[in-house]
Structure formats: C-alpha cells, structure tokens
C-alpha cells in the first residue's frame, strides 16, 4: 500500500530535469565533438573557404560542381575516388571477416600453441599505421624486398603493377586489422553452447557441419556487427594507399586529371581540405559529406537486410 502511495506521489517540479542533469555531461561532449563538427561540415560544404579567410557562402555550387561539371578536376576526383573506395570495400571486407573468423575457429579448437598463435594474430592490431606501412614497404620493395626474394619474383613492382598493388594493399589491411574482429569472434565462439555441440557430435555431425549449422548461426549477431563496422571503417581508407604508393599508377587521363589506380576518396578530401597550398575546404567538405551519406545509406541497407534476416 505504501509502495503504491509512493508511486503516485506527485513529482517535484525540478524532478523532470534530474535525468537531464545526469545526461548533461555526455550530451555536452556529444554536441561539442559530434553535432557541432557535423553542422560545421555541412556549413563549410556550402561555402568557398581557404581556412585562412572567412568562408564565402556559395550555396549548392560545390555540389553542382562535384556532381555535374566534367570540366572540373573535383568532379573526376569524386568519381574516381569513390570508385576506388567502393572497389576496396568490396574486395577487402570479405577478407576482414573471413580471415579472423577462420583464425578464431582454429583457435577455438584449443590446438597446441593456440595462445602463442592468438598473440601473433592480434599483435599487428597494436601497431601504428606508419609502422605497419613502413615495414611492409620494405618487404614489398622491388629491389631488396623479402616478398620478391621468397617468391623468386626478381624486381617485381608491387606498388605500381595492377592488380597486384590492390592485392598487396588488401593483404596489409587484413593483416593489420585482423586482431579486432578476431577477439570478437573468439569471445562469441566461446559462448556457443557446448551441450548442443556435443549433442550434434553424438548425432554424427562432423566438425564442418557443426561449424556451419551450430557455431556460425550462434555468432550471427557479432558477425553482423563486425560486417557493419568493417564496411564503415574501410570506406574511410586513406593511410594505407597514401603511404604504400601515394595513390598508385595512372590508369587514364581525362580533362587534365589523372585517374590513379589506388587513390581513395579520403585522399582527395585530405588533399583539398588541408595541405600547403590550394586549400579548398568547401569542396573537401562537400566530398566528405557525400561520402558520409553513402556510408550512412550502405549501413542502413545492411541494418535492414539483417533485421529482415533475423525476423
């Protein structure tokens, strides 16, 4: 009875603000470091801005230039940058999922030396990008690289030969980023019911069948999560190609713009938005916003497809 009365006691006028007070610190940080930069980015995309001067309002001119003006270098940069980025995402993400998954399945068997193997697989994730790229650049070096020596490839040029530059880039990215997903899969696999696995063994299922019919469906949610985060992460690819070959060899030249094999949209954005000269933060912000919208749309599609699959 007392509890019932307490439940119906009218709230004091300030009580409704109490949750907000608890949320305020997070909201403040969120507004400062998320909402404000997003709004600034949107505003910048509608201006002509060299950073050093006040931005000049140009409305949708940057977008019109990027999307409809083939005479502009930025039109081709957006087009080719996006094409290369999508290509990278399509070819890289499956390996970013399958390779750590395979490792996680192997490690879950608790084979001999699995702790050492786990450390080896995870170790690259702890390295900074520059360390990773410098190391692999030496290994892929055409003159004295260990890769060419081991494979007997002579002076093969990994950085400028299609499609091997892509293979090298994807290999380095997967090697570097394997650890994060590996940990997620390992912990998910550890949670798979041993009783069910044993029961299916007793019923005669082999290891492959157990993996396909029990383990993988049981870790469906972590898999979905890693697919989405990997896609988002790979859309932001920038450092690897920038340090590996600066964007790679020229494939074609259109209207005075050279289409480089591995040059990603983020590289073009960074080039336009920062640097020692010719800063065009308005165009860079427009390109960034278009990329952001594409990532958002792809993520939504993935969420939708997954929700449908879960129903």
């Amino acid at each position, binding site marked *: 009875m007392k509890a019932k009365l307490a439940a119906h006691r009218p709230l004091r006028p300030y009580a409704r603000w109490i949750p907000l007070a608890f949320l305020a610190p997070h909201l403040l940080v969120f507004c400062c470091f998320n909402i404000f930069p997003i709004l600034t980015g949107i505003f910048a995309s509608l201006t*002509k801005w*060299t*950073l*050093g*001067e006040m931005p000049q309002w140009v409305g949708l001119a940057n977008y019109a230039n990027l999307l409809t003006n083939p005479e*502009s*270098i*930025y039109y081709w940069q957006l087009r080719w940058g996006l094409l290369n980025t999508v290509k990278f995402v399509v070819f890289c993400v499956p390996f970013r999922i399958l390779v750590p998954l395979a490792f996680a399945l192997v490690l879950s068997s608790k084979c001999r030396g699995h702790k050492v193997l786990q450390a080896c697989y995870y170790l690259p994730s702890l390295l900074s990008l520059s360390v990773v790229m410098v190391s692999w650049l030496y290994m892929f*070096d*055409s*003159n004295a690289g260990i890769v060419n020596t081991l494979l007997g490839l002579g*002076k093969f*040029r990994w*950085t*400028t030969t299609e499609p091997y530059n892509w293979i090298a880039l994807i290999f380095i990215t997967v090697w570097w980023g394997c650890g994060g997903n590996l940990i997620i899969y390992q912990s998910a696999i550890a949670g798979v019911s041993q009783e069910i696995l044993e029961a299916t063994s007793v019923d005669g299922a082999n290891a492959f069948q157990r993996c396909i019919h029990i383990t993988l469906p049981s870790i469906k949610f972590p898999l979905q999560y890693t697919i989405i985060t990997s896609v988002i992460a790979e859309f932001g690819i920038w450092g690897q190609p920038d340090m590996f070959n*600066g*964007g790679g*060899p*020229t*494939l074609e*030249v259109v*209207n*005075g*713009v*050279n289409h480089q094999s591995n040059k990603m949209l983020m590289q073009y954005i960074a*080039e336009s938005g*920062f*640097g*020692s*000269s*010719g*800063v*065009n933060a308005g*165009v860079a912000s427009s390109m960034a916003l278009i990329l952001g919208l594409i990532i958002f749309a792809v993520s939504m599609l993935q969420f939708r497809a997954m929700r449908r699959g879960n129903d």
Partner: protein
Amino acid sequence: MKKLLTMLLTIAMLAALAVPAMAEEPVSIEMWTLFTGDDGTTMQAIVDAYNASQDRVTLTHVAVDRENLYTKLALAMSDEAALPEVFVTYSYDVPNFVGLGYIQPVEDLLAAYPDFDFAIDKYHDACATLNYYDGTRYCVSLDFPTWGMYVNTALAEQYCPEVLEDNSVTWDEIMAVGASLQEQGVEDVSVMAGSWDRNDLLNSYLDLAGTYASEDGTTLELNKDAVVEALNTWKTAFDAGYLWEEGEDPMSMFALEECIFVTGGTWNMNAINEYGFDFTFIAPPQFSADDTPTLFGASHAFMLPTRSYTEDESYAVASFMHYFYEHSIDWAQAGSIVASKATAESEEYQAMPQAFVAENYSISNPNFTYSQILFDVLDGLDWEAVYGRMTPEEYADAWQTQAQERINAQ
C-alpha cells in the same frame, strides 16, 4: 642604536626583496619552422646555443612538416595567442601570405634595433628581390635551399673525366656517358638518378622556359612546349636505360655507388657526407653548355605573423635573427647556401661545396603568388610521364589544369 640597527636591517631586507622585482622579466618566444630533417637538428642546435647565450630570452623551436605548418598557420590566424612570434617558410609564400593577411612587414621591427643592422646589402644579392613585395620588406632570408646534382668523384673520374672539366653537365653529355657505359658493358653503374620528380622537372623546365608565371607574378603561364621537351628528354634517357629503374631508390643507388650522379638538394649534404666517399655538388643537367647553369632554388626566410608584439618579444625576435646571421656558418654545415654575406665571404664557407654553386650558377626562383600550388600538383603527378603512363602532352595539360583550378579556388 638598537632602533637604528633595526631600521637598517629592515631597509636592507626590503632592498633585497626589491632587486628581483626590478630585474628584467624573462621573455619566452616561439618559432615554427619547416625543418624536420637533418636541417631541423642543426636549427635546434643553433637555437640551443642562442638560448645559452641569453640571460632572459628563451626561444622554443617547433619543427612542423611543410603541409602541417601551412594548416597550423591558417588555423592559428583566428587566435593571436596560438601564433608564434616568428616562423620560417619559403620566401615565395610572401605574396600569398600578404594577400591572406598572414604576415606583416618586418621593417618596423628591424628599424627598432639599429645595432643589429639588418641592412639588405648585408644579405645575398637575391634577397633584394626575394625579401620584398610591393616595395615592402616582408621577410629576412636565412639561406637558399637549392636543387643541384651530387657527383661521385671516383666514378666520374673513371667513366667520364672530361664531362666535369667545365663543372657543368649537359643532357648531351648524359646521353653520351650512358651510351659509353652500355658499350663498355657496365651494368652495375647508371649515369644518373633523379631523386625528386618535382624539383628535377622544375629545374629542367626553368632551364628551358625561364618562368611559369606572368611578369607581375599573378597569373600562371606555363610553357607547354618546354614542359613536353623537358619530359621527353628525361624519358629518352630513362627509356635508354641510362637512369634508374622504376622502384629503385635514387639516394640508395648513390650511397651504394650504383650511379655517377644523383640529383638532390643542398639540404641532402649532411646525409651524403655520411656515405663515406668524395663527392662534389654541381648543377643538374643543362640543355645548353653556353648559358650559366640554372638551379631551381628558393629562400627560407623569417616572417612575422600578423599579431601584436610586446617590446620584449620584438627584441627577442630581432636578437635571434641577428644571432642567426652571425652564426650562419653553423647553418652552412648542413649544406645550406647562406644568405649572410659575412659568412659567405669567410674562408671556412668558401671551402664548402655549396660555395662553388652559389658563385658559379644562377638560382632561379620565379615570382609567382601560387608557386606552392604548382609544386604540389607536380608532386602528385610524380614521374608518370617518364614511366610512360601518361604522355608528356597529357602531363603538361594535367599540370596546367589542376594548378589552375586550385588557383581559381583561392
């Protein structure tokens, strides 16, 4: 008596307390430079020596790579407190920085300290133009980072002793030495390696065309024929196998004595000194033996950001610039062609390889507001025309188109 002693003691104590308060306040200033390599170590040593020589001034040297320096400056312009008291970048940035309002004239500051004597005639003759914009002095030069070519003396004596008789190498001579090496069946030594596409191509282009800008320095006027000719020359030598192979590191080739010549900047001299063999520094290959060889160069210069200065800060900046002038020989050890005439005339400097370059060649640095844009586009285009992935004509168009659109956006 006791009273008198107490009074005297009190006065003495008060006086002791007052002395530190009356002493001059310490001054801290900051200097941003783009010296992040070996030259950064040398600059830091000079700064340390300067700080040690000062009673109350402390200079902090912040080395920032070129691209970040420009971004950092642009962002700091909105907050005076974030700006350094002085920064060092290329003198060709002056017109652009004046237009953007980033820098202020140095004349008032220099005039305030006549004892330091920053008279322009105390500096390399080129400073009379490079330090001025629209008749106003905007910077004080440190040195002239210049593009040239290092020669492995032993290899040159072995394979082409006649080429160096006039201390100048032409493209015809490069081709002749290349052909000769191939005839002799020498496979482990190339004639020349180009270590930086941008400066190599600019040097060749300027040798042919003289400039890339209109007379007033505001409009891009690339000579497409000269670009194509420069590229074709490099490509011909590359295709003939006289140069490096794609993927090879030119400086490593030179270090391993796999090439006779390697192009490089004066700033590479410290590193090349470490290779352990005799070398000289001359102009890159020229198209004609008749003219004075041209080297593409620029000038590092002290500039003052647009901000207010206290009297102490002004003094500290002027005092360091003066110290640097007086101690430019330390800077020259890193391979620099110094701006200080006093240093340039010293015996110690005259014995350095760059002294020969400074006296015998002309340094080309066209006056153009957007030089940096032009250079950055070249950096992006790399050696693609020499490697055959673009035609020289496409390369020339790309250079023009990309630079022009970026200029238009400014």
